């Protein structure tokens, strides 16, 4: 891959300019979703939950939901939106009539998805902090985890979107991939207390698990070697998926 940063930024700007015009329509639903979970599950169900190791259930829930809102922010951008730009609006096709190259285009799209993930995750973090669920200053370590989460789900989403030819397949991506991740990645309950050894090792494959763990450690102000593994997982998987996506985009647009 060879990316020209200025061309990638021009691609990023295209999405930014569009978003500036339409954010009221598409920010709010995605942004409110984790807030609703926080209120319903965290406060409602949480009232019946004891034994979260000294914290309230809503405090347990908060860091995971920050990661989830970053995941959502990135995912919507690189699934439906990217698919429409590629297949219906001919946006990519028209970009490639200019000096923008496929790698720049991919980099710009991913950078934009990371930006949007950061907007979502950042707003959610601010909301959580405002109600006192993010202990300062340790929880500030969560801030770099937000774009990292965005990167991972931008890479997963774009790799998927570029390979499918029908928009209907996104229901599989959301219902059978993102939703199970959301439910079983340490967000709602501590996996290590529910799963036996072998299964716990297998669960390490779940992409969302790693950002959630990074996030939770940041909120608690704890370190550990496992965080290195989490960061490595996110970076290596993202990198591999982006290399794959770069190949696909050249094949889809360059024949």
């Amino acid at each position: 891959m060879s990316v020209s940063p200025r061309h990638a930024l021009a691609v990023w700007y295209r999405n930014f300019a569009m978003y500036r015009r339409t954010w009221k329509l598409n920010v709010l639903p995605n942004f409110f979703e984790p807030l609703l979970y926080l209120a319903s599950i965290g406060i409602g169900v949480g009232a019946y939950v004891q034994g979260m190791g000294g914290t309230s259930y809503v405090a347990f829930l908060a860091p995971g939901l920050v990661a989830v809102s970053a995941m959502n922010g990135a995912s919507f951008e690189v699934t439906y939106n990217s698919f429409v730009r590629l297949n219906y609006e001919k946006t990519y096709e028209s970009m490639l009539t200019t000096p923008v190259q496929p790698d720049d285009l991919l980099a710009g799209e991913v950078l934009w998805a990371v930006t949007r993930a950061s907007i979502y995750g950042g707003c959610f973090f601010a909301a959580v902090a405002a109600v006192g669920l993010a202990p300062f200053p340790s929880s500030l370590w969560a801030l770099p985890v937000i774009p990292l989460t965005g990167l991972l789900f931008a890479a997963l989403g774009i790799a998927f979107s570029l390979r499918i030819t029908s928009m209907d397949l996104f229901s599989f991506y959301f219902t059978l991939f993102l939703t199970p991740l959301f439910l079983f990645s340490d967000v709602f309950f501590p996996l290590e207390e529910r799963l036996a050894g072998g299964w716990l090792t297998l669960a390490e494959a779940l992409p969302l698990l790693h950002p959630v763990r990074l996030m939770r450690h940041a909120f608690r102000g704890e370190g550990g070697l496992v965080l290195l593994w989490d960061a490595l997982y996110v970076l290596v998987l993202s990198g591999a998926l982006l290399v794959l996506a770069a190949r696909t985009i050249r094949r889809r647009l360059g024949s």
Partner: protein
Amino acid sequence: MPEAVVECRAVVKRFGRRVAVDGLDLAVPAGSCFGLLGPNGAGKTTTLRMIYGVAPPSSGEIRVFGLDVGREARAVRARIGVTLQENALIEPLSPVENLRIFARYHLLSRSEREARIEEILDFLDLRAFAAVPVAKLSGGFKRRLAIGLSLVSRPELLILDEPTTGLDPAVRLALWERIRELRDSGTTVLLTTHYMDEAERLCDRIAILAAGRVVAEGAPARLIRETLAAEALELELAPHAEREVLGEQGGVPRVRSGRHLTLYVADAGELLQSLRRRGGAAASLRAVVRPTNLEDLFLHHTGMRLEAGEDGLGAADGPRA
């Protein structure tokens, strides 16, 4: 002839087992308006995509400004503008915002960008709608904007894929005028079209593509003159009456489409008079005498068979794709 801005040599493009472009040779002279004509599926769009370097040819060589497009796509595309067949506009944004975004793809500085946008708004009469969301513009203004996007970088070569398809006659005339102005100011224009009047009025040279090959190439008037007789006689004449009415004129080249028969001769008026003198069915023939045009040439090359008098043999009912 001036140097060629675009040169294609023995270009082949395969999609799996389908051969879309099959040994294409093409030279677009600098400063000319060059038309690629051909039925749907003849390989026009594929050829353009190879020329602006998005699709690599399966074999053969393409040079633009003397540069190898495959190796120097970015350098080539910095000097060209492309209007795709389908408008790729950002509908919620205004023309100015669309132009700004496109100018950024070309890395224009802010001052260059704003100056260029002003010029384009005037040149394409977009100023009245400069700040209106594109979604609210008519088809004609959307097309103008799409062409405007391809002009932001002051291209030396402008590639237009069916620039006026689906537009009303007034808009087409206005766009032709603009394209001519661009050509006159030194821009080389390469366009595809299905409209023969467009090609005839606009293009200095044309190439007719059929099944991925160039079957005819040159200045439109000269090509017509060299291929067909100067005039055409159109008759409403059923196939079974052809021999009776035409009599000894059986050797004249002709093309049939249903009841519609066109004969190509040097003097169509004289032919019509001589037919009428024979009396009978010929006396009441509905006939049109006109100069031979590009449409005749196109039909000649892309499917409808010209017949030299084989009795009653109907040609295909339309150009074969």
